[in-house]
């Protein structure tokens, strides 16, 4: 498997898109640290990059890369190797390239300017968000044959988790606020990887103003230690489950 990963990864790392993404992230994070004398504040600003730009880039790039490699994947499927191996290589290579870009663009500046537990929590959730959205993108593209529809579905997934979901939670809160819905809200929070990543970072950063309702409730419900542990585990599930389904679908798919 590593042979295919090696070749695909080398190909992606030479592409201008990944290079531009890395430079973009590096410019933003370095300037955030240089502009503010208090590095903790800059780390807090980086939270928003983790929550908006990284999921968007991961999901779009993975989807487009899959469709652009379609003929090549077809050629690989005609070789004497198993489909699992091909499809996992494709996924691992794309995700690795995005992780490398993230580490170079955001990880290294954090390590240089503000290496503490808060910094690590931002790095961890950025890495997890990359893996999760790449995994979701992969599932979307395996499920849809048409390129435009696949990219549309991927964008919709991003929009749903980043923006629509919060609206839905607010709606539920207002409609059922006479009932004890806290347990329900806790379940719903785990169903959104972006919210989980946000809570995971903010528990360490200790900024109550940015916690929001779900974050505050989360902290009250589970406490800091259990909360961090639980949210990090659920994020791992979010990374593993979509790609596993994707591989299953791909195994019996007509290309």
């Amino acid at each position: 498997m590593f042979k295919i990963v090696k070749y695909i990864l080398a190909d992606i790392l030479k592409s201008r898109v990944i290079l531009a993404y890395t430079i973009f992230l590096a410019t933003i994070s370095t300037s955030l640290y240089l502009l503010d004398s208090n590095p903790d504040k800059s780390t807090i600003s980086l939270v928003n990059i983790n929550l908006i730009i990284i999921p968007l880039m991961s999901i779009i790039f993975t989807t487009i890369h899959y469709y652009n490699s379609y003929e090549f994947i077809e050629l690989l499927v005609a070789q004497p190797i198993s489909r699992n191996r091909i499809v996992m290589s494709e996924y691992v290579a794309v995700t690795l390239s995005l992780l490398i870009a993230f580490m170079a663009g955001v990880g290294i500046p954090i390590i240089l300017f503000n290496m503490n537990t808060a910094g690590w929590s931002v790095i961890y959730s950025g890495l997890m968000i990359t893996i999760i959205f790449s995994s979701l993108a992969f599932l979307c593209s395996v499920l849809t044959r048409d390129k435009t529809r696949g990219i549309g579905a991927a964008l919709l997934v991003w929009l749903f988790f980043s923006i629509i979901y919060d609206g839905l939670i607010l709606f539920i809160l207002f409609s059922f606020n006479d009932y004890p819905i806290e347990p329900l809200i806790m379940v719903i929070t785990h169903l959104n990887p972006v919210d989980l990543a946000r809570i995971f970072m903010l528990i360490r950063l200790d900024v109550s103003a940015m916690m929001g309702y779900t974050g505050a409730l989360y902290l009250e419900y589970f406490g800091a230690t259990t909360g961090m542990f639980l949210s990090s585990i659920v994020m791992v599930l979010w990374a593993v489950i979509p790609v596993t389904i994707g591989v299953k679908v791909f195994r019996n798919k007509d290309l």
Partner: protein
Amino acid sequence: MISIGQLCKRYGKLPVLNNISLELNAGSCISLIGPNASGKTTLLKIILGIVRPDSGTIGVAGTNALEGYRYRENIGYMPQIAKYPDNMRVGQVINLLKSLRPSGIGYDEELYTTFRINEISNKPLRSLSGGTRQKVSACLAFMFKAPILILDEPTAGLDPLSAELLKAKIKKEAGADKLIIVTSHILSDLEDISTHIVYLHEGKILFHETISEILKRTRTTSLSLAVAEIMRNSSHV
């Protein structure tokens, strides 16, 4: 070498292959022809394991092709559209495929030399023209000395000289007791190289004959005339 039994495939409601049974033997070059959308590429893709059939059986070199993937060691494949990752170099693609296939029997580098692939092996694939990419695909299909070769429109996009070189190679391999399956719309090309014709029409095999049988039956002198005759008749039916 390849035996296909009662193969059926639908895309949604549209039947593409309808109960196809076929027996293909080594030492022959089969031309798969038929109008657009008659199921040629789908049939090839099913043999290659790229598309899964709804029902039916396929045996390749004695093994069941619907389970496992090792049987594909016997097949060299040249796709209709060659598209490779943009920044990969020609040499890298060749090395990648070499690393994925068994190397025990050595490599057939005849096309690699005749098409002078070594001169472009440092170029990224994105910079190559369609025809040059087609040459790389052809070279890859023959490289692994596979006893079965599946070539989907091999001469499309090639210049006349390269097309002739490729045809000569196909002829040579068919003489070396291999099974070659070719699809093309350029019938004069096929007439030179093939021994048998399989004609697909709306997912069914209309006939499977040698070229001389067809010429005799249609009382024509060339394959293109014969096939035109058959297509005209079958559209009247």
